[in-house]
C-alpha cells in the first residue's frame, strides 16, 4: 500500500485516497471550436508513461481536497506532492 502525504493532513494510507488520473488536463478554452478528434483527445486520451507521472489524488476520508503527486509508475515511489504547477523533479527520468 502506498503512503501518500496530503499537503493539508500529512501522511496517510493509500486507502484514504482516491485516484484522479493524469494531472494538468485543462478544460478546452474554446469548446465550441473543437473537432471530434480534439474532443476525443480531451475526453479519452491520457498519458500512460512508464516512469514518473504527474497525477491527481483526493484525500476522500480526510480533508476531501484534491492535489497532485508525481509518482514513478514502475517503482511506485512518490517523487513529489504539490499543488499548482508541476515541479522540476517531475520531468527527470522520462519513459522507461
Amino acid at each position: 500500500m502506498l503512503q501518500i502525504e496530503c499537503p493539508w493532513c500529512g501522511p496517510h494510507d493509500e486507502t484514504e485516497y482516491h485516484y484522479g488520473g493524469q494531472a494538468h488536463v485543462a478544460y478546452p478554452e474554446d469548446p465550441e471550436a473543437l473537432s471530434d478528434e480534439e474532443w476525443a483527445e480531451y475526453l479519452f486520451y491520457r498519458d500512460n508513461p512508464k516512469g514518473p507521472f504527474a497525477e491527481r489524488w483526493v484525500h476522500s476520508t480526510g480533508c476531501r481536497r484534491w492535489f497532485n503527486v508525481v509518482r514513478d509508475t514502475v517503482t511506485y515511489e512518490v517523487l513529489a506532492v504539490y499543488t499548482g504547477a508541476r515541479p522540476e523533479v517531475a520531468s527527470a527520468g522520462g519513459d522507461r
Partner: protein
Amino acid sequence: MTAQSPQRSVPGEHPEWLWGEPDPKRSYDAIVIGGGGHGLATAYYLAKNHGLTNIAILEKGWLAGGNMARNTTIIRSNYLWDESAAIYEHALQLWEQLPAELDYDFLFSQRGVLNLAHSLQDVRDSVRRVEANRLNGVDAEFLTPEEVAKICPIVNISPDVRYPVLGATFQPRAGIAKHDHVAWAFARACDAMGVDIIQNCEVTGFVKDGDRVTGVETTRGRILSDTVGMVAAGHSSVLAQKAGVRLPVQSHPLQALVSELYEPVHPTVVMSNYVHVYVSQAHKGELVMGAGVDQYNGYGQRGSFHVIEHQMAAALELFPIFSRAHLLRTWGGIVDVCPDASPIIGATPVEGLYVNAGWGTGGFKATPAAGWVMAHAMATGEAHELGAPFGLERFSTGHLIDEHGAAGVAH
C-alpha cells in the same frame, strides 16, 4: 515418494520443446510484436486463415510470460452489447474447436460460469444481460439462490450476510482452460507452419517511410516488414508511442492469487462484480481467485496488499469453507484498460501498423477471436466485421461499447 505416473490426467511438467529458436531474418511478410496468447493466436490465424507463413513473433521476454501466465483462465461470452457478444461468442466457439484443431488437450473445461447478483439493481442488470445474451445466441439463464446452490453448493446463500446472493446469471458453456498449455499449443502449431517465434527480442523503435511502417528496430537488429501488428497488452501505449501513435488506454496492476491444493470443492466458476471476487478451482486443486485492479496507473507487475485483503473478505463471506484455506501466492500483471472497457483492434494512423490492445482485465477469454480478427486486419488491410466496431475511431465518433458492467472486474 513415487515417480509421477505418465498417465496422470493433469499436465504438470513443461513438455519437450514444442517450437524452435530461430534467429531473426532480415525481413518478413508480417511481424507480430508480442508473444503472449493474443500474439500467438494472431500469428496462428495469419498462417492458417491467410496463408502468411513468412512471419515472425517478436517477444521481448519469454513466450507467454506476461498476462498469458497471470490470468485466472476464465472463458465466457456473456457480454451485454451486440458487438461484444459477437466477438466473445466467436472466441468461445473457437475454444470449442481448438483442442482438436491444435491436437493439444489444454484442459478446456466447460463447467459454467455464475455471475452473482447482490442487489435489486444487480438483479435487474443481470436479467437484462441474460435476455440480451439470448437474443445474440449466447447461452444464458437467470438462477434463483437455490438454483445457484445446486450448481455450486459451497456458495453461502444465507440472507443474513452483508451482500446476500439474490440470484445469478449462468452460462453453461463457459469455463476455464490451462493458460500455459494454450500458449504452448498455439506456439507448436505456429512453429509447424513456419512462423519464427523469436524470444528475448525487444522492439525499441519503428522504421517508417513517411506515414508508412517498413520495419522495426529491435535488440537483435533491424527487421523489415510492411505489415506490423502490436499485441503488447499492458505495454501497448509504451510501444505505440515509439511509433508516434497515441492510444486511449491506461495501464493498471491487476492481481490474482492461488491457494494450496485442495480436494475438489468448487465445480464451476463464480464471479461477483458487486463484492468483487471471482473464483474457480484449477484441475490440480488450487483455488484460483482474481482481485480488482489497483486504482493507480502502474507497470510494476505487483499491486497493493489491501486489494487482496478486500477480495479475501468478499471470498470468505461468499465461501465460508475457504476460512481454513491457505494462500499460496499472489502475483500481478499489467492490464491496459480503455475508457469503455472494450478493446481496440485494427488500423492505426501509421499505414501498415495495426494494434490489438485495451483488453483490460478480460483478454484471455478472447484469445482466439482477437487473433482471428487481428490477423484479418493485418492480412487484408480491412477490418474484420467482428473487429470493425472496436476501431480507434470510436473514440471520436462516440460509438463507445460500454462494457464496464459485464467486464467483470471493477475498474
